[in-house]
């Protein structure tokens, strides 16, 4: 499913992490932990194909869903328009109503995203990540900025999602889903 061999990345100042290897099978939940600045988000961005690591190799499945705190949504589009746009670009069937109801955003239809709270945006990003029917889901701080209902949503994804999940978190509660942990 996902194979990482000797991954390393550095910015100008020096290596952020090096010699990291991991394999995650379908159904696996890999927790990436480590203190602030240890490279958790960079590691996830590398796997998501948003950053070329300076060394190492990543073999990832074709369909990858990615959601992160620093990812933003278009302020002048509605949630359904986001889902339609993403579906057309990724070549999947646009089913905005279905996905919005799955993440509890069925009542915000027609509202522009600049009126969304941080938690609502996080839910939309989850819907966008799930929409392409990914084999691998990458979540950076999945429960940050979510209310109790949002945390339940993440809990249900973590429990029921059939593919592999790689997620970064320092929240003790989030450890419960992990089958493996990688400390950076």
């Amino acid at each position, binding site marked *: 499913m996902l194979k990482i061999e000797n991954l390393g990345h550095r910015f100008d100042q*020096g*290596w952020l992490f090096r010699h*990291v290897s991991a394999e995650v099978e379908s159904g696996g939940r890999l927790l990436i932990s480590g203190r602030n600045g240890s490279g958790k988000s960079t590691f996830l961005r590398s796997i998501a194909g948003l950053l070329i690591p300076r060394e190492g190799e990543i073999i990832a499945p074709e369909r990858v869903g990615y959601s992160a705190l620093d990812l933003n949504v278009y302020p002048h589009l509605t949630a359904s328009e986001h889902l339609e746009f993403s579906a057309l670009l990724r070549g999947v069937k646009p089913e905005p109503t279905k996905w919005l109801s799955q993440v509890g955003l069925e009542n915000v239809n027609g509202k522009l995203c600049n009126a969304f709270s941080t938690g609502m945006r996080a839910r939309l990003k989850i819907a966008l990540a799930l929409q392409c029917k990914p084999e691998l889901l990458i979540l950076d701080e999945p429960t940050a900025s979510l209310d109790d209902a949002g945390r339940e949503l993440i809990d249900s994804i973590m429990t029921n999602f059939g593919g592999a999940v790689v997620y970064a978190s320092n929240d003790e509660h989030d450890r419960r889903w992990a*089958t493996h*942990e990688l400390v950076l």
Partner: protein
Amino acid sequence: MKQISHLLLGLAVAGMLIFTFLVPDAQLFMEPSLARILFTHVPCAFLASIFIVSSAFFAGSFVRKGTDVAAAKMHASIELGTIFAALTMATGILFSKIQWGAWWHNDPRQISFLIVLFFYAALMALRGAYNDRGRMDQSTAWLSISLVLPAIFLMFVFPRLKFVEQKSFHPTRTIPEGQLDFAYSFGLWGTLIVLGWLALVIFSLRKRVELAERALDDNYGHDETGSRGSALDGVVRPVAVSEKD
């Protein structure tokens, strides 16, 4: 062998420099001794043109193969081309002031070469704007490829358009039609060959420096991971949570 070739180059540069001062002053010039500027101005313009084409060639090679060598050659071409374009412009402006009476003459060829200098400036500006080496190489390569056709037009086609030939003070047919006297002709081709040789040596050195910098950067970078758990030696692998707990 390399030392001998460098010695020969040094002798050739010195010989050509002496020769350019020994040739007699040219006639029909406001300042006859200034005609010698030809020995710097024309070869520099020629080399600036060659380097913009070579930068695009190596850029194409980099886009296809993605090797550091192609990237290093592309960057060396851009840097040397910028220097030669700036020298062409500086010598041209100086000549314009003394021969034609003004620093800037709106001569079509002055303008077209100024645009070529802007091309180089754009390439240099783009190179400096990326911290990420991979992106810097890629974007510079694409810009270099995009600029080559307009540059060829400006340097080789535009000066030969009839209305430009009529308006320009630059002679376009003097050199190709052999109207220069022997001493000036020899001096011009001689400086072109010697300067070209010097440029090739600098090009090769610059390429090697670039590659060495990249090798150093990749292999001996300061390791930030040492203070934390991530590995300096060995490989970091995930631990099964059940095993840990």
